[in-house]
């Protein structure tokens, strides 16, 4: 049985990755799962300098999921390179660093520093809904997305994955803009912008008022968008949004994803990533699938 998938020339032992921001750099969940078993660890977003993030409350539960407005708190690229990359290098898994910034120059500064490291891929966060500058500003218009993608591609040593926002009118158009600008892959969906109001206190549940929604409740939206994006481009698509088990992961593969990321489910079940790796193998065995590539985009009209 072959569970390997290749994205932009990087071969993952299996298609299961962690979704940025839910898994730190693997240290915390390394107590629960064997990081050697994962296809890749996608790190929390890292900027050129430390970011303090938003005020609390930063998280709230909603029906079948959660809202977060962390605001990309991170230690900056220098600490990250000194601490987090050496930590991840100890494991037999691919390292994908999520990069955030307020300006194009910020992104480029991080991308250039990472060029001297052995990380495997870069995921460019142009879709965080929780920071006022940068991020989402580059991810909601095709020309802005095209521009930042081509600028980053000029400076990036590693393959570039553009992480797309679902908070757009036409996801296919966004996917095509990233591809046209030279992106090596795209990942989606980032969180859906949401809001929760505490009716007893008559206040917003989050200090930031709005937050990004994740969790199983968003999965149908994510599957639809992954299908639309995968249909629009030839570059690989990494699918995510509410994946909680192997069945969910297979659904994304069938929709056209070459790999999947597991996010909020880590909070509900700290063992979930490894369970999904095993569950996909069990599915392949059950349906006599020799090579996982047979599943990618294999959904058909009945």
């Amino acid at each position, binding site marked *: 049985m072959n569970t390997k998938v290749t994205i932009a020339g990087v071969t993952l032992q299996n298609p299961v990755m962690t979704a940025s921001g*839910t898994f730190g750099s693997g240290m915390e969940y390394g107590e629960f799962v064997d990081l050697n078993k994962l296809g890749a660890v996608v790190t929390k977003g890292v900027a050129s300098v*430390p970011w303090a993030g938003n005020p609390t409350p*930063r998280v709230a539960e909603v029906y079948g999921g959660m809202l977060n407005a962390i605001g990309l708190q991170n230690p900056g690229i220098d600490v990250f390179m000194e601490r987090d990359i050496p930590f991840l290098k100890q494991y037999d898994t691919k390292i994908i660093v999520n990069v955030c910034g307020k300006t194009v120059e910020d992104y480029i500064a991080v991308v250039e520093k990472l060029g001297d490291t052995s990380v495997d891929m870069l995921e460019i966060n142009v879709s965080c809904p929780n920071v006022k500058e940068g991020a989402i500003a580059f991810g909601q218009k095709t020309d802005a997305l095209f521009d930042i993608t081509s600028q980053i591609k000029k400076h990036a040593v590693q393959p570039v994955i553009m992480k797309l926002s679902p908070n757009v009118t036409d996801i296919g158009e966004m996917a095509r803009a990233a591809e046209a600008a030279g992106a090596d892959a795209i990942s989606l969906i980032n969180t859906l912008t949401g809001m929760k109001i505490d009716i007893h206190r008559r206040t917003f549940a989050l200090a930031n008022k709005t937050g990004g929604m994740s969790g199983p409740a968003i999965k149908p939206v994510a599957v639809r968008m992954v299908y639309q994006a995968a249909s629009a481009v030839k570059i690989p698509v990494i699918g995510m949004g509410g994946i909680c088990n192997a069945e969910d992961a297979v659904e994304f593969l069938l929709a056209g994803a070459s790999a999947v990321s597991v996010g909020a489910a880590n*909070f509900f079940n*700290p*063992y979930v990533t490894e369970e999904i790796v095993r569950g996909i193998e069990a599915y392949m065995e059950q349906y006599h699938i020799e090579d996982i590539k047979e599943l990618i985009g294999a959904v058909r009209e009945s």
Partner: protein
Amino acid sequence: MHKKKLTATIKSQREIAKGIYDLRLSTELAAEAKAGQFVCLYPKDKSTLLPRPISICEADGESGVLRLVYRVVGKGTAEFSCLTAGETVEVMGNLGNGFPLEEAVGKCVFIMGGGIGIPPLLELAKRMQAKKQIIAGYRDKDTFLKEELEQYGSVYVATEDGSVGSRGNVMDAIRENGLCADVIYACGPMPMLRAIKKYAEEQGIPAYISLEEHMACGVGACLGCVVKTKKVDSHSHVNNARICTDGPVFEAGEVDI
């Protein structure tokens, strides 16, 4: 011991005050639990997915019983309140660092709790080697855990309605009884903790306070539950410590609350 998520069996559960439940779990987590640590319980209802952080009230390694005393505040805790002996619940622990017991040895100590912040003080009072003055603030005459706390120190009660002890809050109880201490340990609502921080600064004594915040992961990955700190935090170096992993207990002078 590594953090674990496992299935625990309910040994017993009863309501000990209005909306306050005393839940006893059989779990190996009891063996190494420290006073001031917490666990996360997971609701079975899949519409409420986030783990619920609940402080450890008592942990008996010998019998393997972990005791949690919590208030029903929403759907998750309402579900837990229906659990009965023999049923199971998913629990992750042990989380956080607990209270620094060594700071109290041989000293005169205030152990101060407000409302649902009182339960973790029971294990603390039990394990602490000090002259213990336990000050407990309640809303009314529903003074849960008071008799048990009395086994481990002198207990002073404050109630908001004045029905038991001093009328007012824990600070009123200190003043009314003319108490003083070398070090404070506290858990309770934020206004109480702010008052304790101010008092400790005035007195020039350390105060170890246990904080709470909305959490998602409970293990330090999501950065949801942060508190502003004087010192650079270990994770992000932005003076935002994670309550779940760097806390939940902090020296009051170290945090901006």
